[in-house]
């Protein structure tokens, strides 16, 4: 009986969704703002990756909110997992030398790849969030492949706090120079150069460090054990 009711409810929900979506034509330009971004994005922001110009310039304030949510999530996870007691120092079984050597060899390469992605966020696909996640996956490799290694929690927290502070400070400097939050006050330079697009690369590097240290902190909290 309960299953029948839930199937009927799900069917009604699916029917409603299909009816709602059917009226929207697929792939048709309905708002002018999307066209504006595609046509004027490069001139306005100096960033050749239009996605980046939307994320950090036109919608920069939303990105600040996104970063804040990630920060709150990391803190909540830490509050749940880390109860303030001392960590159990368990006996760790060393991994085989082949595995740990391979992990140590791959770690800097993956970290470099992540850094490349968030430094070139305004030129090529990717950006702070993607690059930070890739850098954090390098740390995950170390957590898995070389058991017993830990990150220094104080340093990761310092790094992510500094990242947030620099983001907000850049926004406030824009407010002071140009009259609105996250105004692009640095020179835009030539398009397609590494040093172009004003504050966008700065913000993406900051976001990359912040995301990487946040996820590294989450992973460290998960892999460690408290009483």
């Amino acid at each position, binding site marked *: 009986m309960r299953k029948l009711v839930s199937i009927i409810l799900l069917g009604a929900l699916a029917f409603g969704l299909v009816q709602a979506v059917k009226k929207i034509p697929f792939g048709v330009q309905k708002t002018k703002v999307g066209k504006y971004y595609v046509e004027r994005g490069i001139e306005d922001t100096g960033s050749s*990756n239009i*996605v980046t110009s939307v994320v950090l310039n036109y919608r920069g304030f939303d990105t600040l909110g996104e970063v804040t949510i990630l920060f709150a999530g990391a803190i909540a996870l830490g509050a749940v997992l880390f109860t303030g007691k001392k960590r159990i120092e368990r006996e760790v079984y060393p991994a085989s030398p082949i595995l740990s050597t391979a992990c140590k060899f791959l770690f800097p390469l993956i970290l470099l790849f992540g850094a490349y992605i968030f430094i070139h966020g305004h030129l090529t696909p990717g950006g702070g*969030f*993607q690059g930070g996640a*890739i850098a954090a996956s390098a740390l995950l490799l170390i957590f898995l492949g070389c058991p017993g290694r830990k990150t220094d929690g104080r340093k990761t927290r310092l790094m992510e706090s500094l990242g947030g502070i620099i983001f907000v400070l850049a926004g406030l400097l824009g407010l002071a120079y140009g009259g609105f939050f996250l105004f692009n006050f640095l020179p835009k330079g030539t398009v397609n150069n590494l040093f172009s697009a004003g504050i966008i690369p700065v913000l993406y590097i900051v976001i990359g460090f912040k995301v990487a240290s946040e996820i590294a902190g*989450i992973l460290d909290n998960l892999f460690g054990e408290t009483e």
Partner: protein
Amino acid sequence: MAIAYILIILMILCAVSVVFFKDLLNAVIALAAVSLIASVLFFLLQAPDVAMAEAAIGAALTTAIFIVAVKKTKRYENEKIS
């Protein structure tokens, strides 16, 4: 775009099998497969930014976090927590 249809069918199969696996480790791996196929589909739809985020976060980091969670709680669905 025949490859896209094959990938979508595979993705739906993986997503349904997540619900039916009794071994939660298998369910986590199937979820990772869903994320991986989603990232390939994003790439085929010419959204490389989203594809990168999905591959790094959905397929790698979320899977690792879920595996640690399974390891710390219980592995099979009907098992009691000791």
